[in-house]
């Protein structure tokens, strides 16, 4: 059992300007980003800079007989061509191992040696005077490959006689997992009903607007490698690159300038991020590589790709008793650093029971190696697929029992007085408003009226569907999660450094980089609120390992809780010093000093006051006046760790109304409602932006995006936006959004992660809505994403065929 005695943590933070919090302060980054003045890695130009391109495997699985670079080297303008053999000694292969006993290791060379395992795997790197020449030369590199049959499905990978995928493998899986709590078999035996369904979420990808990009340059005087890297995690990138390149961390500097979207794709370290600095070091010239869209769609990372077999035990009255989940993840060809190929599976197994009060749970599964692009994190890791699977099953239970799906959920959700809740998946839910958010959703969407409209339109031949999803999700993971996985990097803290200069203005240094989230704004609000100084007097700095404190960076909705938490605590400590100094100057005792609008004064005597600025001036410029024992220093650092618990758990409920075209199966979204609870909100406009963008990304997963492969040849089929469809502005309906504000008892300010809820719940809600609409045709099971028109139309045909067969008894 965990010690939850520290259920509520008092961080001793006092807010002097409450109006700074919960305020939709306009984004300070927008004039730069919207005005076209953002600076991305692509914009970096260095004197004498060379350009690299990669020769990538055209085959899914093959032995490398030879890589002949002779002709390529001879092309004028080519400076160097490197192969896997050239990098074998100078770099180390990426091994991202998890600590589970069933784990099997994989080594991923920076450039392939001996064997290629997916189409797009880098095999050689051409460096030339420009990218055009580099690509000309790349087409001259001759590859001699001996094709091998690829593993293209999880069933092939799970076959007992599968060939070892990586050296020394005994099964086709990176890892298998199982966990159990409660009397699963007993509850299944005594339940009135059980239902077993398979739910499949397709493989798709994060697809940020800006792909990956790297510029590297070696300073010959001190051997410092400066790497401009489009990354979410500057310090993790530094560690990863340093380690695999054998270049010490104190001589590696990462600069992550403006980053045009990440969504999890850029919190890994990729071979290309190591190969480019390698070339810069070997050639002693700056080298640039900017990923193109084909590379992005085929050679970066894919995500989701989950097959979930769920079995649920429930009673006639709608009580959900127990759950069994068997999760199979198609993890692709290699384990990604530092999250490993255990990530999607591990979290899915833990997450599957969701926000419901299951009394027992058995979760198990496998992460299977296939000859596809490696699987990596993407907004809503594992929860998107798990929520789709569980919420579809819950809806099918409601349908079986002929209960209202919202009512069924409400009677099974964890109540707000039951926290902290130890979930059978091993999580500790800190707080939440699961039932309240559903109630609010029903109210704001006027679901009764929607149902009435649905019936009316049905009479006019239209097939409207209403779908709901509700879920909670782990964000701002504490050490517990990664320690359980045993990953190379155990994530669970982040740092901030806060500095006040002589003019009383503050710079905040953090590692939680922003790729669109607006941290320059929201973090400044946190500081201004505590110190009661103008918002404009706070500047936020991140993205350079030379100045930012070493932290874990931005992913898993951790920036506000972890980065923001450390900012709040560092600011608290800075303020404590300001209070002591103010007390000294005011000849009062620190307990009696109050702060308002940037002025300190003795309680009850506002006439005598000293400003934050006067104190700063004294500390920096007239330190002779400092009281004994105080240093001339106005800088504090804090490393906040998210203990206790397993992270903080926001919750969200979504309702969507769809129109299904009976002729074509095309799904149109008519209305979209979201109630989200990520605790107290620092800047509502930013949270709303996160939800809107998240929902749009969820719509992509529900209806459009699919990293499809040809299963015979192993070729990826969606290699450009011609075939990889992304939702556009016209595909995203107006989203109506309301907030609830249940604080986490643990984090500073009670904040929770807000960035993933939109994405996590939307495929589930849309699928439930489509299933609801399809009920107008008859009995069909919506069980696979994406809901392309063709797939939905196939459901319609199946339903019609079933209805035409008189033998089918269907009382509902």
């Amino acid at each position, binding site marked *: 059992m965990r010690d939850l005695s520290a259920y509520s943590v008092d961080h001793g933070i006092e807010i002097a300007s409450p109006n700074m919090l919960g305020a939709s302060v306009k984004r300070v980054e927008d004039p730069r980003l919207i005005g076209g003045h953002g600076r991305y890695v692509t914009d970096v130009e260095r004197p004498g800079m060379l350009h690299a391109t990669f020769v990538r495997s055209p085959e899914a699985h093959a032995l490398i007989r030879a890589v002949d670079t002779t002709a390529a080297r001879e092309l004028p303008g080519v400076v160097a061509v490197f192969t896997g053999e050239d990098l074998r000694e100078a770099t180390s292969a990426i091994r991202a191992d998890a600590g589970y006993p069933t784990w099997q290791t994989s080594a991923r060379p920076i450039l392939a040696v001996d064997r290629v395992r997916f189409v797009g795997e880098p095999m050689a790197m051409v460096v030339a005077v420009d*990218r*055009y020449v580099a*690509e*000309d030369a790349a*087409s001259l590199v001759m590859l001699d490959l001996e094709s091998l049959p690829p593993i293209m499905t999880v069933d092939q990978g799970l076959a007992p006689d599968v060939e070892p995928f990586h050296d020394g493998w005994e099964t086709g899986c990176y890892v298998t997992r199982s966990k159990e709590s409660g009397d699963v078999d007993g509850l299944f035996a005594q339940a009135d009903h059980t239902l077993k369904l398979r739910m499949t979420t397709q493989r798709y990808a994060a697809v940020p607007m800006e792909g990956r990009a790297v510029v590297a340059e070696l300073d010959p005087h001190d051997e410092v490698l400066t790497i401009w890297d489009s990354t979410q995690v500057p310090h993790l990138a530094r560690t990863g690159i340093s380690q695999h390149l054998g270049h010490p961390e104190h001589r590696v500097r990462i600069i992550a300038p403006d980053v045009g979207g990440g969504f999890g794709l850029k919190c890994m370290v990729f071979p290309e991020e190591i190969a480019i600095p390698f070339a810069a070091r070997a050639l002693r010239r700056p080298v640039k590589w900017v990923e*193109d*869209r*084909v590379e992005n769609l085929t050679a970066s990372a894919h995500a989701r790709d989950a097959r979930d077999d769920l079995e649920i035990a429930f009673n006639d009255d709608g009580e959900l008793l127990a759950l069994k989940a068997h999760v199979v993840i198609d993890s692709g060809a290699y384990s990604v650093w530092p999250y490993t190929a255990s990530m999607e599976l591990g979290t899915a197994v833990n997450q599957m029971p969701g926000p419901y009060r299951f009394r027992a749970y058995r979760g198990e599964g496998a992460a299977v190696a296939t000859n596809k692009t490696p699987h990596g994190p993407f907004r809503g890791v594992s929860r998107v697929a798990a929520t789709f699977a569980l919420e579809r099953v819950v809806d099918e239970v409601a349908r079986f029992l002929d209960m209202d799906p919202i009512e069924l959920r409400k009677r099974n959700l964890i109540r707000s007085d039951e926290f902290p809740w130890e979930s059978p998946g091993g999580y500790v839910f800190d707080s939440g408003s699961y039932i309240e958010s559903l109630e609010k959703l029903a109210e704001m969407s006027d679901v009764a009226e929607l149902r009435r409209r649905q019936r009316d339109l049905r009479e006019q031949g239209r097939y409207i569907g209403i779908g709901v999803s509700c879920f909670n999700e782990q964000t701002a993971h504490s050490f517990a999660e990664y320690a359980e996985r045993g990953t190379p990097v155990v994530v669970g803290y982040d740092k901030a450094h806060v500095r006040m200069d002589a003019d009383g203005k503050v710079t905040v240094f953090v590692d939680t980089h922003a790729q669109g989230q607006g941290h320059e704004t929201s973090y400044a609000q946190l500081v201004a609120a505590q110190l009661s100084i103008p918002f404009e007097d706070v500047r936020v700095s991140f993205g350079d390992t030379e100045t930012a404190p070493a932290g874990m960076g931005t992913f898993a909705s951790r920036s506000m809780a972890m980065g923001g938490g450390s900012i709040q605590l560092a600011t608290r400590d800075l303020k404590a010093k300001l209070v002591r100094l103010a007390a000294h100057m005011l000849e009062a005792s620190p307990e009696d000093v109050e702060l308002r609008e940037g002025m300190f004064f003795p309680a009850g005597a506002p006439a005598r006051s000293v400003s934050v600025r006067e104190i700063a001036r004294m500390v920096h410029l007239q330190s002779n006046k400092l009281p004994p024992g105080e240093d001339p220093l106005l800088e504090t650092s804090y490393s906040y760790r998210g203990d206790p618990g397993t992270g903080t758990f926001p919750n969200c409920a979504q309702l969507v109304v769809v129109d299904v075209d009976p*002729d*074509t199966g*095309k799904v149109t979204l008519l209305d979209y409602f979201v109630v989200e609870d990520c605790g107290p909100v620092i800047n509502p406009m930013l949270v709303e932006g996160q939800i809107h963008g998240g929902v749009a990304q969820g719509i992509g997963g529900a209806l*459009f995006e699919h990293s*499809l492969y*040809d299963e015979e040849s192993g070729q990826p*089929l969606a290699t*450009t936006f*011609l*075939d990889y*469809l992304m*939702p*556009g502005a*016209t*595909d995203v309906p107006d989203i109506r959004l309301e907030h609830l504000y249940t604080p986490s008892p643990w984090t500073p300010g009670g904040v929770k992660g807000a960035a993933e809820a939109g994405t996590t719940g939307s495929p589930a809600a849309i699928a439930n809505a489509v299933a609801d609409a399809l009920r107008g045709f008859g009995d069909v099971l919506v069980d696979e994403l994406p809901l*392309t*028109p*063709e797939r939905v*139309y*196939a459901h319609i045909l199946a339903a019609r065929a079933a209805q035409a067969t008189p033998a089918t008894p269907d009382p509902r």
Partner: protein
Amino acid sequence: MKPAQFQLLQPTTRAEALAVLAEQPDETVILAGGQSLVPLMNMRFVTAERILDLNRVSGLGGVEVRGDRLVVGAMTRHREAELSPVVLDACPLLAHAERHVGYVSIRNRGTVGGTIAHADTVAQVPCVAVALDARIVLESVRGRRELAAGDFFVGNLMNAREPDEAVTEVHFPVRPVGSLFGFAEFARKVGDFPLVTAAVRLEQGAGLSRSARIAVGGAGPTPVRLAECESALEGRELTGALAEEVGRLAAESVSPADSPFVSTDYRRNLVRVVVRRALEQALDCGEELR
């Protein structure tokens, strides 16, 4: 994703352009709006030693009515064909179909000659051209000839142009007074390439249809006229039920290829739907005329 090296040739007159093309026809690729060609070059699906840019050639754009033909210059941008009052009046079916071509920014650049030459079976304008039996004007230093659209499109992304010829004009028949028309497509997203298209035009006498023209795109390597469907309409009153019947007939008369993202059966179903919808539009435009 960078094109291979090429020489860019930018003549300013039609004669010069044709002369440049005649120099090395097999090594020269014509650049119009670049909306299809440039991505193909970037991915090196097309590599050419010489790129002949028509954008500076005078007199290749613009629309006008000559007798019973609407003459559309090859370099006329989609957007102009969509919005021009001349086109709306003389060949509203073309203007109507143009609205579906990509996004506004694509239509501002892409050209009518380009989409005809590109000969994509799912492209909207070629479907209209086949339905209306448009004439494609080809010019070279050897002279000028006209091909019927149905003869010009010989396969998906393949046309009957000789390497030294340029498409200079496309002639659409001027709409007979009182004729009805409709254009429908099925695309997965607004602005995305359609999976199938259908264009129809028919005339009416005493409430009965005649001289119907129906073409579908995306159901085979080129857009095709559907003769059976056309005769099914002959002499009958166009109704919703007839539209559905003809849609079904259309679906039966095509055999689209299977593709990884779209099966034959589904595409066939889409043909049924778009043909029906195009006819329903014709019906609506009949209502408006009344």
